[in-house]
């Protein structure tokens, strides 16, 4: 176990507590950058997929894990980010500018939508956002002059600083693009957490009433959380749509939003690592299942993926509510404390529910 001797207040908000940690993450980054020389193009595109899901997952994590608001409608914002990015590119904007602008537009619209949604809490917010996700599908069809509706829209060619990025021609460029986005978003997220706004997010999550008592403007904080979360989701959506090559109203249906939520729960709510671990599960589960059914010599079973996903999720919520990353933390603490770790150290506190209804 490592003890940190703090000699200044700045140490409290350092990105990494010591050089050991920093070195670990730098090494991880180096490995990730070098991955195209190790993996073949199939696995590289799988890893790209993981990174794209992780970007969108970080967006939802900011809202659900950090601020405590459940959204089942992030697919709508992913679609918004994707379509605005594509439309801006078609209008002649360079990719990078259109990509960032797509995220910003999504964030602004998300913040606008958040203003009425703020009045809702808990389950009502979840249902309102679910309705939003379902509406997005129909709205895309109605706006078919811009969005291409049911027929869909082909993703325009991505050119960054003169270099063409094509999934089939040079998958490593696509991979680096996704990696750069994921790293940037993670850095933004991490920095946000140590800012006053990030602290306010956590305060609102843990108790709205006490946050208010401490002088946090709850409405403003929630709006900011929603806007930023939507911006990240928009970036993830833009990448997802461009990576798929063609987008229509079905690409971002509400099941994507549900999957996103389930993903961050499996990964571990409230942890950056959780978004990445969850993305790994979501992206590799279909592959793993198809390999498993092949081994068992069975034909593909329709709906198996969703069913297994649901079972995994139920198991996690009951046995490990902190997700994969929470489990890893527990294992690490157990190893660090070995032979002194005790079983009841992580016992869930017994709690009782009280309603806010009057009748």
């Amino acid at each position, binding site marked *: 176990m490592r003890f940190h001797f703090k000699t200044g207040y700045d140490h409290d908000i350092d990105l990494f507590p010591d050089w050991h940690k920093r070195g670990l993450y730098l090494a991880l980054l180096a490995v990730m950058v070098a991955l195209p020389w190790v993996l073949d193009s199939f696995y590289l595109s799988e890893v790209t997929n993981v990174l794209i899901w992780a970007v969108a997952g970080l967006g939802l994590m900011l809202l659900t894990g950090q601020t405590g608001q459940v959204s089942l409608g992030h697919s709508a914002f992913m679609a918004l980010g994707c379509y605005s990015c594509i439309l801006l590119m078609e209008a002649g904007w360079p990719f990078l500018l259109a990509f960032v602008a797509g995220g910003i537009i999504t964030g602004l619209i998300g913040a606008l939508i958040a203003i009425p949604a703020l009045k809702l809490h808990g389950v009502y917010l979840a249902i309102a956002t679910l309705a939003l996700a379902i509406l997005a599908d129909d709205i895309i069809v109605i706006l078919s002059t811009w969005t291409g509706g049911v027929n869909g829209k082909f993703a325009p060619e991505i050119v960054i600083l003169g270099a063409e990025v094509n999934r089939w021609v040079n998958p490593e460029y696509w991979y680096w693009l996704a990696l750069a986005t994921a790293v940037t978003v993670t850095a933004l997220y991490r920095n946000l957490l140590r800012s006053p706004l990030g602290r306010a997010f956590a305060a609102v999550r843990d108790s709205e009433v006490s946050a208010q008592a401490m002088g946090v403007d709850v409405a403003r904080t929630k709006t900011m959380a929603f806007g930023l979360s939507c911006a990240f989701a928009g970036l993830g959506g833009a990448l997802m749509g461009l990576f798929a090559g063609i987008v229509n109203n079905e690409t971002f249906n509400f099941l994507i939003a549900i999957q996103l939520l*389930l993903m961050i729960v499996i990964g571990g709510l409230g942890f950056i690592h959780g978004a990445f671990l969850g993305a790994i599960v979501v992206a590799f589960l279909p592959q793993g299942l198809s390999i498993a059914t092949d081994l068992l010599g069975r034909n593909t079973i329709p709906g198996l993926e969703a069913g297994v996903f649901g079972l995994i999720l139920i198991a996690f919520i009951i046995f490990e509510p902190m997700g994969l990353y929470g489990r890893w933390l527990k294992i690490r603490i157990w190893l660090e404390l070995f032979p002194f770790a005790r079983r009841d150290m992580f016992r869930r506190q017994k709690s009782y529910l009280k309603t806010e209804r009057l009748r």
Partner: protein
Amino acid sequence: MEVLQLLLSGLANGCVYGLVALGFVLIYKATEAVNFAQGDFMMLGAFVMVGLVNPHYLGINFWLAVPLAIGIMGALGWLLDVGIMRHMFGQNQTALVILTIALGFVIRFVTGVIWGHEPVNLHSPLALGDLRWGGVVLSMAEMAVIVVTLILTLLLWQFFQRTKAGLAMQAASQNQMAAYYMGIPVKRVQGAIWALAAAVACVAGILYASKGSLDISAGFIGIKAFAAAVIGGFGSLPGALMGGLIVGVIEPFAARYLPAGYSQIAPYALLILVLIFRPHGLFAQVRTKKV
């Protein structure tokens, strides 16, 4: 005449939404949880009925199979509570939302494995015959849906208002610890309410399957039932039925009078409007929490 016809068919549809919404409200009222799998419960109940009645499967008499199916679903609801929901006792709503969504996935998968993915028809004696007055046609099944829904809502509503068990259920949700002190077996009450909600879902499923063909995606009408429950104010049983009827009636009218593409939007747009202007539904029950 056309308006009346649209209204009547809308009412019949709305009653099914109302019944599913009733299930949401039951569980919400008694456990403060929202069961996102209620639509899938309905679908499963309908398939259990198909499995009992259709000659391809067991081929039991319809009227014998109805209580049997309701009993099976009720037992299943109770088992789900004992096996899964009870582990979440006292935890926050978010975890339960996610848990029930996952449960819906699993139910859909299991149903698909057992009964297949093809649409099936329930051999229902309700499906025969139409009632006609002038130009208005109402099938027997639709008539049965409306009657059964009204009776069931009335019964459940009175159950919650009048009986000791109903009041115990409400108390158990409002403050679990205080309910314990008052001698209410909170966990057993919650098991009972899950069984009841599953049984109501089964009734909804039987009625739904009598009206037309049935497949696995039938569970998605749960989302429309959500709109109904929210419009009604989540926590009020007659409110849920009202919400269901509103959603059900809006749909055929929107399909008739709005341009194509806009009609599916109508229920959800209404839901969002209600949430913006009356955040806790038309029959609100929530006030700001005081410290």
